[in-house]
C-alpha cells in the first residue's frame, strides 16, 4: 500500500466507492512528547495528504490531522484545509491523549470544527502507555490489549466531553468514534443515565438523560462484533437508534479490517442497511452522490 492509485484499486476490489483516509502510524501521534516535532509532523502529513492522495476526484477523501499538542495550531490547520474539496473530516489522535478531549484546552478545535462544518473523528490504537486506558502492562497478550484499548479510549474521551458539556457548548459539532466496534455504545448510554440521576451536579449541562446526546454521535463499525447470532447485533443497533448513526468502516489495509459483506449480513432493515453502508456517512461527511 504505497499510493493513492493502489488504494483506489483495493477499495474497488472491496466494493467501496468512497473512503476516508487515516494516518496509520500517526494513530500514535499523541505519544510524541516534543510538541514542536509533533506539530511539524502533523503539518507535513496534511501537506502530503492533499498533494499525494487527494489530487483526483476518485472517492478518496482526507481527514486533516489536528495536532492537539497545541489546540490553536490544530484549529488553524483545520481552517486551512477545510476549503480543500476532498478534505471531509478532522482526525484527532485518541490513543494516549492527555488530558482527554473534554478538557477546555481543546475548545479551539471544536470551534474550528463547528465553523468549518467538518466532523471530528476520534481514532484510537492499541499500545501500552501510562495514560488510561493504555496502562495495560498487566496483560500478557495483544488479545487483551486490543479488546480494551480501542473502546475504552473512546469511552474515556466521550465521557470527558460529556463532563465539560461539549455536546451542548458546541451544538453543531458532529463527532464520530472509530475502530472501537459498537457494542459499548448502549452500555455506555445506560451507564451514564444511571449515574446522571445521582451526580447531575457534576455535569449540570443537560436537561434530561445525557445519553440523548450520544444518539446524535456517529459510530463506525470496524471491528464489527461477530456474535454467534447476528440478530443480536441488529438488536444492539436498535438500542441506540444505530440505523441512523452507525457508519461502515473497513480499516483497510490493516490486519483486522472488515469486508463490507460482514456488515451486510447484519439483519437490519433494507433501509437501515443502506444507511449504515452509505447514507449515514454521506450525511456525516457532507457528501452528495447521485441517487441509485
Amino acid at each position, binding site marked *: 500500500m504505497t499510493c493513492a492509485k493502489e488504494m483506489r484499486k483495493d477499495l474497488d476490489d472491496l466494493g467501496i466507492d468512497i473512503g476516508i483516509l487515516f494516518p496509520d502510524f500517526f494513530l500514535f501521534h499523541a505519544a510524541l512528547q516534543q510538541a514542536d516535532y509533533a506539530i511539524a509532523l502533523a503539518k507535513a502529513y496534511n501537506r502530503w495528504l492533499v498533494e499525494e492522495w487527494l489530487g483526483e476526484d476518485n472517492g478518496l477523501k482526507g481527514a486533516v490531522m489536528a495536532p492537539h499538542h497545541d489546540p490553536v495550531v490544530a484549529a488553524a490547520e483545520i481552517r486551512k484545509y477545510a476549503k480543500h474539496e476532498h478534505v471531509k473530516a478532522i482526525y484527532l489522535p485518541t490513543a494516549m491523549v492527555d488530558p482527554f478531549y473534554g478538557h477546555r484546552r481543546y475548545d479551539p478545535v471544536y470551534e474550528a470544527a463547528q465553523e468549518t462544518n467538518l466532523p471530528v473523528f476520534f481514532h484510537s490504537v492499541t499500545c501500552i502507555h501510562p495514560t488510561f486506558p493504555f496502562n495495560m502492562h498487566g496483560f500478557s497478550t495483544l488479545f487483551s490489549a486490543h479488546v480494551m484499548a480501542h473502546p475504552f479510549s473512546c469511552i474515556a474521551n466521550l465521557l470527558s466531553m460529556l463532563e465539560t458539556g461539549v455536546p451542548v*457548548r458546541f451544538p453543531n459539532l458532529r463527532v464520530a468514534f472509530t475502530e472501537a466496534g459498537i457494542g459499548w455504545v448502549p452500555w455506555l448510554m445506560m451507564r451514564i443515565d444511571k449515574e446522571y440521576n445521582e451526580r*447531575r451536579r457534576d455535569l449540570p*449541562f443537560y436537561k434530561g438523560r445525557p445519553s440523548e446526546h450520544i444518539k446524535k454521535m456517529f459510530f463506525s463499525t470496524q471491528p464489527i462484533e461477530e456474535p454467534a447470532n447476528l440478530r443480536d447485533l441488529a438488536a444492539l443497533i436498535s438500542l441506540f437508534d444505530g440505523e441512523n448513526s452507525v457508519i461502515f468502516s473497513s480499516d483497510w489495509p490493516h490486519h483486522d479490517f472488515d469486508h463490507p459483506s460482514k456488515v451486510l449480513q447484519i439483519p437490519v432493515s433494507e433501509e437501515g442497511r443502506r444507511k449504515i453502508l452509505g447514507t449515514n456517512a454521506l450525511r456525516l461527511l457532507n457528501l452528495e452522490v447521485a441517487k441509485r
Partner: protein
Amino acid sequence: MKKEIMVATVAELPEGSHKIVQVGSREIGIFNVRGELYAIPNVCFHQNGPLCKGAVSGTVRADEQTSWKLEWVQEGEIVVCPWHSLEFNVTTGECIAYPGRRLPTYSLRVEDGQIFFPADK
C-alpha cells in the same frame, strides 16, 4: 381527604426549615422558603425514597447564561433525596435533572398560626 386538616403550626416551621407530616396514609414534606410555605409528597419518583428527609440547599447550573461555568443557584429551594441525590425544586415540584417532570405540589392555608393541608388533595 374529605376536608382540610391541620398538619403543623407555623412555629414549628421557621424560615429555612422543613418537616414531614402525616396526611392520612401519606407523608407530606412542608418547606418554609423565605417565609412562604410549600408542600410536596415525601416520595421521590426515582425509587420511592423519602425525598423530604433530604437536606435543602441550592443547586448547580451551567448554561449559556453562565458562560458554561458552574454556578450555585436557587439556594434554599432545592431538596436532595437522601437515597440517590435526585434534586427537586420544593416550590414547583420540578425535578432538576429532568425539567418537565415534577411532583405534585399542594397549597397550604395558614390561619391563627396553624397550617392546613387542603381538602380533596
